[in-house]
């Protein structure tokens, strides 16, 4: 069985993003970029399924600038077999990304698409659900456990206050949550080998997808700084304020 794993290139998890002085966005020039951490988990899950013998081929795909090649190389160093770069300089919105992915799904016919639950740049948490909607296929978001057997996949999902288990007929869409697994390192020997794995380059136009964003960014600003509050003299006063003023207890 075949798995498609979309991976996004984002500002590295360790970097504190800096809003540009002119408010037009967040500075990305010269900033370290990496694979979206949730996507590493998605790749890892696919690789584990392959190691278990459930999956035969893993295709990584990224939609973005030419530099997203680095992210695809990382995915291949982790264990993806080949990759597809859908090259565009346009801002990539989940709706458009989902349309690109839909076209690729129709072409590659994977049994599973495993995405990250959310990209840590725009925090949309939408692409997987949207892809499932467009394909009219079952979805299991925020997966913390995945079991594939007999043409179906059983997924434990993280929900508020607990977990839910659902069963999906294949083909299906899954999005990975933090607890699904701990991704492996891309080791140096594997990075070297990944240089030789195939990477296909296409454009959204080749797939007939219009990338024009629906959201336009009016401005991006730093969040207002928190202000120092007041100092209180006693525990009694604190409890009364929390109860009557802040109304949080």
């Amino acid at each position: 069985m075949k798995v498609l794993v979309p991976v996004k290139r984002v500002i590295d998890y360790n970097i504190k993003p800096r809003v540009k002085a002119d408010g037009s966005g967040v500075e990305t020039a010269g900033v370290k970029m990496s694979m979206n951490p949730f996507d590493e988990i998605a790749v890892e899950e696919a690789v584990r399924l392959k190691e278990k013998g459930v999956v035969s081929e893993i295709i990584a795909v990224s939609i973005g600038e030419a530099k997203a090649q680095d992210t695809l190389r990382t995915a291949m160093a982790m264990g993806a077999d080949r990759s597809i770069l859908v090259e565009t300089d346009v801002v990539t919105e989940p709706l458009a990304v989902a349309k690109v992915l839909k076209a690729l799904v129709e072409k590659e016919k994977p049994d599973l698409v495993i995405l990250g639950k959310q990209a840590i740049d725009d925090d949309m948490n939408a692409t997987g659900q949207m892809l499932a909607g467009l394909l009219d296929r079952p979805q299991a978001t925020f997966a913390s456990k995945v079991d594939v057997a007999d043409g179906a996949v059983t997924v434990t999902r993280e929900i508020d206050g607990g977990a839910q288990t659902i069963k999906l007929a294949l083909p299906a869409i899954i999005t990975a949550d933090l607890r699904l697994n701990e991704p492996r390192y891309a080791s140096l020997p594997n990075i070297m080998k990944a240089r030789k794995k195939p990477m296909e380059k296409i454009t959204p136009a080749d797939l007939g997808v219009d990338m024009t964003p629906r959201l336009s960014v009016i401005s991006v600003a730093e969040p207002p700084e928190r202000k120092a509050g007041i100092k209180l003299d006693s525990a009694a006063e604190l409890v009364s304020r929390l109860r009557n003023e802040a109304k949080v207890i």
Partner: protein
Amino acid sequence: MSETTRETMEFDVVIVGGGPSGLAAAIRLRQVAPDASVCLIEKGSEIGAHILSGAVIEPRALEELLPHWREEGAPLNTPVTEEQMLYLTRKGSLEVPFLDRVMPHMSNHGNYITSLGDLCRWLAGRAEELGVEIYPGFAGAEVLVDDGGRVIGVATGDMGVGRDGQPGDNYAPGMELRAKYTLFAEGCRGSLTKQVTAMYNLRKGVDPQTYGLGIKELWEIPKEMHRPGLVQHSFGWPLDDRTYGGAWMYHFGDNLVSYGFVVGLDYPNTWLSPFDEMQRVKLHPAFRPYFEGGRRIAYGARALSEGGIQSIPRLTFPGGALIGDTAGFLNVPKIKGTHTAMKSGMLAAEAVAEALATNRAEPGSYTRRVRDSWLWPELRGVRNIRPAFAKFGMKGGALYSGIDAMLLRGRAPWTLHTRHADNEVLEPASISPKIDYPKPDGKITFDRLSSVFLSSTNHEEDQPVHLKVRNMSLWKTVNWDVFRAPESRYCPAGVYEVADEATDPKLQINAQNCVHCKTCDIKDPTQNIDWATPEGAGGPNYPGGM
């Protein structure tokens, strides 16, 4: 972690370190030996992530390496237009007149202000175009030597080893990168360089290396205050006459200012805190106006070699060579080491190409090439200036350097020597005057932790501590009892803290904060701290512009 589980890859040349020296060597190699396979590893998460410099750059070596650098878009965009050398008193400042005559080495005509990290990112692109394989995120952790005593490459560190030293679930063993020649381009105080230096006794007969610590902030300042091309240096306040150092401020790019402070690590006062010196100089009237209304973008620190030509070790050994600042090729009075690092890398590359062709074990012609190039006279000409500061103090040193420049023109028939290593000159806490530093105001001055935050430093938490204290009991009897924990002050990242100070003082090491400046490896009074490479990709992530 047995050796048998490690994979091996063979190259003609392996270069350890992706700074200007390593990248220049890689490029030169592929230019002169296009068939040679060249692999470069860098411990930072990407090229440039660990590069910290001023930087006013002399394009001389770049010109020789890539004559079309302008057309190819090298990020040297702000030419130096104006220079000031300021002597600071507590409240005032005097500008040194006729700078180009009194301190000709400080003259910056034809030089550019830039981010050295950005230049390295650009150089890495050229190197890859020429077929160099670059692997950031992997640290050289071990030197490989064959039975005949020849260096045959390096091994990268294991990944996924837990704090307890045991392999974890995602353990990935290191890899052996074998090479006919290995170039160590680790920058100031390289950790593998330290090993090969000991192995081949490379420092025999040369002065001890002496160092400085540079701590830097990158600011974005209001447009009205920005004077692109302005280069300022200061000396005097707040350092005493026995301490070498001063501030720099360079205006460049889009309203960017590179500000920082260098302190000679031969400072005697154990209470001195280079970080707090850097912070308080920002409040001096000569600098403060530039920071008002500005925004601090990044922070970092790095040691630099200040020993000069007297301290350069033997450069080659069977199977390899030292290049750049790890060998000590820095022009100290100029505070410039980029052009010299690049030049040394290029010369080593040419020597290696020759050795490859003739199958010689040691790329010995490197040393001759250095002596025959402009590198040697340049460094020789300034050899007495830094030692004069050590010998005669800041004022005497300044006077000496004026005389040296104007009368002797660098051709003095004598050579001043550095006698003591930096770790030997610290004086006990009991006789050192305490220093009262102002509290950070959160607008212009800051504390260590909020500064480290702006270096985007991180290390995987679950790994062995990479700062190895050889003998913990020495810490109590020497570092604490005699010097009152100087590491808690000189470390610019707050790695060293004293716990339970009042009752039972203990050293607490927050290894995760380390910005890889190497100061503790240099300044610890008994050389009891060993800086080892942590898991690859750990450390600072300096952004573009830094």
